[in-house]
């Protein structure tokens, strides 16, 4: 499989390797494709069917993510591939091509189309197109609960009759109807259920042309079961189909796997005559061909939908419109948004306090136990130091600091997502992102970044255009993640607030935190704007944002999946990145060269540079070592200042203040530390994630370099100007 090299920022068609049916199906009995419009609950269906038996990779040669999974049913193993969500298969953009070519060339045994019952007409656009390519289709009529709330009754039986394929009503997010769905899939795959797919009625103009063209295609390619589709694609100038025709591969496109007709490779003369004939036939409608095809499909969709959908009562759901009017209003829209985000932050910070403390106590108690064990065995001091006080401590620190806030933030965020509120945020802020040359959905990825930047980077997959996705990825780190909040809060309360009279000190601390958040967001816009005018120049992609109906979040499911998911991720990160960092820190603090520790040496070297940007040598050393995990920065700094041999925590803020002040730490230093913390390079996990998502060394390096340079410039500016005014 050819590996793609970098995020394709142009819309050029990349030549990619089409996987063969046999390779995809290896280890399984049947290959199943999952398609559907965006926002139909397709991923919910995918997750429900595959559970843990799934992984996410890439479409070969493209930077579009692909989820693959499997499930068992009645002793048969099914391989399920999630195709990109698309509104149609006609347009010449990456997602449509991937879906279309997969259906045509990889020939899954069954194609499941997930449909949003509340918008049947538009969803039928895709269904009718899929029915042209494949005979073995199952329609999953999802979100019927929402349809009911809108007062709509969808007659699945009627639909099934009209479409000629099984239609299964489901409410995927509570698991309703999924058994029937799997049964239907199995039935179609095994041949027990025979489908008789409906082919959409063509407009006269096209029918006339096809009457001439189809026999021509037959002559050149043999008898194909989806010949009407192939003919239409050829008329529209589809390159891939054209190539298949010329290579004699078209016969392999026969709708069924058995009994494919003889592979016919047309000779040059035949091809020339063929090209001429279809060009001549098509010329009267050349300009409007695409329009005619789409209008035929929609006319058919309207007919079918009107028969299947009845409005039984007035919509119970005017609540949607009422809420939206408030939430997007000129007056209260923004305040509500900001208030909600502040609420999420506040609950996260407050709620995480006690659990963090408890976890810390527990894990550090364990550390002491480990220490005793080592001593009991008479292990050398350095071994105990390295493994227990370095490695384990690093791990323990990260877990106790990171786990509680993440375990609160992410479920809260998922609640907002389940609720349907997130697109409203994107809707409110899109204008700013448009100005910055970016995509409205970057709002959501940015908000994710407040929880964890690695998660934010992954969520950028929701942005289709490679250019805009890259901008979102590169700027995600400017919003401080859960791991950086403790540092920010500590600095704000211990150093900034104390510089103000006690009456206003806590207000000052809060103000700093809000200001810092706003700086992060402002920097996101600024750098996005910069990138889209320099390194990532290009046009804005076509923007459409679907605003789903509000629905009740599935609290228990969210709590369960979010909690487990986040816990695993934090533990993984702690073990893989933080533990080694802990070991390294211990080494730096305990290896003596020429009477001083390595840490002191390093700090000495970096000191002049550090002072320039308002920090100092120890802080810079801490930041370099703590690349893996922002949480251990403060403990490392304390270790450096105290000259202790391990990362330390101090109990009282007064002690902390005294220690730092003794080292020359001033309000200016605190301020620069805060700014540096917000603006600097991503942590190791995030960088690693960026690498996996972009597969590009260039962009991964830039994702670190750009924030670093900005952090330096800003800190330098702030430090020098404040000093010029006589502060610290």
């Amino acid at each position: 499989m050819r590996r793609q090299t970098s995020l394709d920022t142009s819309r050029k068609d990349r030549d990619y390797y089409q996987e063969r049916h046999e390779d995809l199906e290896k280890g399984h009995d049947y290959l199943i494709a999952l398609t559907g419009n965006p926002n139909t609950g397709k991923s919910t269906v995918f997750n429900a069917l595959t559970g843990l038996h799934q992984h996410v990779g890439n479409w070969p040669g493209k930077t579009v993510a692909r989820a693959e999974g499997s499930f068992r049913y009645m002793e048969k193993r099914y391989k399920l591939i999630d195709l990109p969500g698309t509104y149609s298969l006609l347009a010449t953009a990456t997602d449509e091509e991937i879906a279309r070519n997969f259906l045509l060339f990889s020939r899954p045994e069954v194609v499941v189309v997930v449909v949003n019952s509340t918008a049947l007409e538009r969803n039928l656009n895709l269904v009718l197109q899929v029915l042209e390519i494949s005979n073995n289709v199952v329609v999953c009529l999802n979100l019927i609960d929402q349809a009911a709330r809108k007062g709509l009754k969808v007659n699945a039986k009627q639909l099934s009759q009209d479409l000629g394929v099984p239609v299964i009503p489901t409410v995927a997010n509570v698991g309703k109807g999924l058994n029937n769905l799997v049964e239907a899939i199995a039935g179609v795959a095994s041949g027990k259920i025979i489908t008789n797919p409906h082919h959409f009625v063509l407009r006269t103009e096209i029918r006339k042309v096809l009457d001439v063209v189809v026999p021509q295609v037959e002559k050149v390619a043999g008898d194909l079961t989806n010949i009407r589709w192939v003919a239409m694609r050829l008329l529209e100038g589809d390159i891939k189909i054209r190539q298949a025709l010329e290579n004699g591969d078209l016969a392999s496109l026969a709708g069924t796997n058995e009994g494919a007709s003889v592979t016919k490779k047309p000779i040059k003369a035949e091809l020339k005559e063929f090209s001429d004939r279809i060009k001549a036939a098509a010329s009267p409608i050349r300009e409007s061909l695409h329009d005619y095809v789409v209008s035929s499909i929609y006319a058919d969709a309207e007919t079918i939908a009107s028969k299947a959908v009845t409005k039984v009562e007035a919509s119970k759901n005017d609540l949607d419109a009422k809420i939206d009017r408030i939430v997007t209003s000129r007056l209260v829209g923004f305040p509500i948004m900001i208030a909600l985000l502040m609420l999420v932050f506040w609950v996260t910070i407050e709620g995480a306090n006690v659990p963090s403390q408890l976890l810390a106590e527990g894990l550090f108690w364990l550390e002491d136990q480990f220490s005793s064990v080592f001593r009991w065995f008479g292990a050398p001091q350095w071994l105990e130091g390295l493994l227990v006080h370095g490695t384990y401590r690093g791990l323990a620190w990260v877990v106790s600091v990171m786990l509680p806030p993440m375990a609160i933030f992410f479920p809260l965020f998922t609640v907002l997502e389940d609720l349907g509120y997130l697109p409203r945020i994107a809707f409110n802020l899109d204008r700013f992102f448009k100005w910055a040359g970016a995509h409205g959905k970057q709002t959501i990825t940015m908000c994710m970044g407040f929880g964890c930047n690695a998660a934010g980077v992954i969520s950028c997959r929701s942005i289709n255009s490679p250019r805009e996705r890259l901008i979102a990825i590169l700027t995600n780190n400017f919003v401080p993640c859960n791991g950086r909040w403790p540092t920010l809060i500590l600095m704000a309360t211990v150093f900034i607030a104390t510089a103000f009279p006690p009456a206003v000190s806590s207000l000052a601390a809060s103000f700093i935190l809000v200001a810092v958040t706003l700086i992060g967001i402002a920097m996101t816009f600024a750098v996005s704007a910069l990138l889209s005018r320099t390194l990532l120049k290009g046009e804005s992609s076509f923007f459409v944002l679907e605003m789903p109906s509000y629905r009740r979040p599935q609290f228990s499911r969210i709590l369960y999946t979010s909690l487990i998911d986040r816990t695993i991720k934090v533990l993984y990160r702690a073990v893989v990145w933080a533990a080694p960092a802990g070991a390294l820190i211990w080494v730096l603090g305990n290896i003596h060269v020429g009477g001083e520790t390595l840490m002191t040496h390093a700090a000495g070297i970096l000191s002049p540079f550090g002072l320039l940007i308002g920090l100092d040598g120890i802080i810079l050393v801490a930041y370099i070592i703590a690349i893996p995990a922002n949480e251990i920065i403060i403990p490392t700094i304390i270790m450096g200042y105290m000259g202790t041999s391990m990362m330390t925590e101090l109990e009282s803020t007064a002690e902390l203040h005294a220690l730092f002040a003794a080292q020359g730490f001033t309000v200016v230093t605190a301020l620069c530390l805060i700014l540096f913390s917000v603006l600097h390079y991503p942590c190791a996990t995030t960088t690693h994630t960026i690498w996996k998502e972009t597969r590009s060394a260039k962009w991964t390096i830039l994702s670190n370099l750009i924030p670093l340079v900005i952090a330096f410039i800003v800190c330098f500016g702030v430090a020098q100007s404040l000093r010029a005014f006589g502060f610290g």
Partner: protein
Amino acid sequence: MKLRSNKKPEYKTLAEIKIGQKAKVVKLLVEGLTRRRLLDLGLLPGTEVKAVMKSPTGDPTAYDIRGSVLALRFEDASKIVVKNLSSRHNEETN
């Protein structure tokens, strides 16, 4: 955004439709990929749409199109010529 073409007074672009008003698509003034995308969403001549909500920043605006609420930016909505279906009495001005 006023069009300089020969359109009658009751024809405007989707971008000019006020919140709460209904309109019927007449034609699309754009070609290429954008046209295809708009057609894919079901914005064909004859389709009825309704303006549902507008961002507090003024852009984008969300429209009810064949059962879904979809937000479109001004530059795209202004390429869709529509016929205003709402009577003066039913209008809800934004």
